[in-house]
């Protein structure tokens, strides 16, 4: 699972006429920017492409987890506004991780996501290793 997190690149795959022009519903934006690798149902193709179902709900409960989700290179570089990115992340969390999401979960905001995505992960592997230690101990 460490390898899965280490390779967690939320690849955005937007091509086409309206990708940069229109604001889509969160579901359509997910299909456009994320489903190319993570598939429409979030099942993905582990271990190369990590599964989005279940695990993310636990990750947001760990200190730094919310911040991390918006800093994953594929997420932070997605060609969408901060607000749209927050809506996509919230949609993924609520749609694919409803069972594992903390009961006191509050949706990510555009401002919060904007701050996180501008804080570029210069050494993603190192950062993920530290986060993963916290994540593993939270599960014990």
């Amino acid at each position, binding site marked *: 699972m460490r390898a899965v997190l280490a390779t967690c690149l939320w690849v955005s795959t*937007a091509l086409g*006429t309206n990708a940069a022009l229109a604001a889509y519903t969160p579901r359509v934006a997910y299909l456009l920017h994320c489903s190319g690798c993570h598939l429409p149902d979030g099942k993905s193709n582990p271990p*190369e492409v990590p599964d989005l179902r279940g695990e993310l709900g636990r990750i947001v409960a760990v200190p730094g987890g919310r911040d991390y989700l918006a800093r994953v290179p594929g997420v932070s570089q997605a060609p969408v506004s901060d607000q749209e990115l927050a809506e996509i992340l919230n949609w993924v969390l609520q749609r694919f991780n409803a069972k594992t999401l903390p009961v006191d979960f509050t949706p990510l905001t555009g401002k919060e996501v904007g701050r996180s995505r501008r804080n570029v992960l210069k050494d993603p592997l190192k950062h993920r290793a530290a986060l993963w230690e916290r994540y593993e101990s939270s599960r014990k």
Partner: protein
Amino acid sequence: MTLNDAMGKVYGWLDTRTNAASRQLARHTSRRGFINRMGTLLVGAGVLPLLPVARAFGAEGLSEIGDPQSCDYWRYCAFGGTLCSCCGGSLTSCPPGAEPSPITWVGTCHNPADGKNYLISYNDCCGKAICSRCFCHRTEGDRPVYFPSKSNDIIWCFGTESHAYHCTLAVVLSEATEA
């Protein structure tokens, strides 16, 4: 009346009826006419899918105009590669012997038949040597390869047994509904 006489009458009656029915059939049908109609049916069935007429795809349920074997077809607005519909496959299925890549890239194209935008998934079919027919390169929204997630020059044969590229599909995922 003996049994032989009775059987002879039955056979005679059958013979007469069969003879009359055959003549009736021959008078009202033409072998050349039959061959003509059969030929029209066979050739027509082959040509019909190529005609630029509106057709409904049951699986995807939308009306479309155009020729899926032409680069101008609406679904190919950001297409880079060879058309599977020219290579023994279709818009949504790989040719025999090729495997669709689960990893793909997604774009949006405008459907002139209904005036709506749709999400198009360009899945590569992999595991066979490249099909050299119908190469298309359209670049709406395309970016240089140093921005790989938005470059249609990338071969997306990931998650398949072989990385050999054969051709590309154009599957409609959903209507691109705006918020």
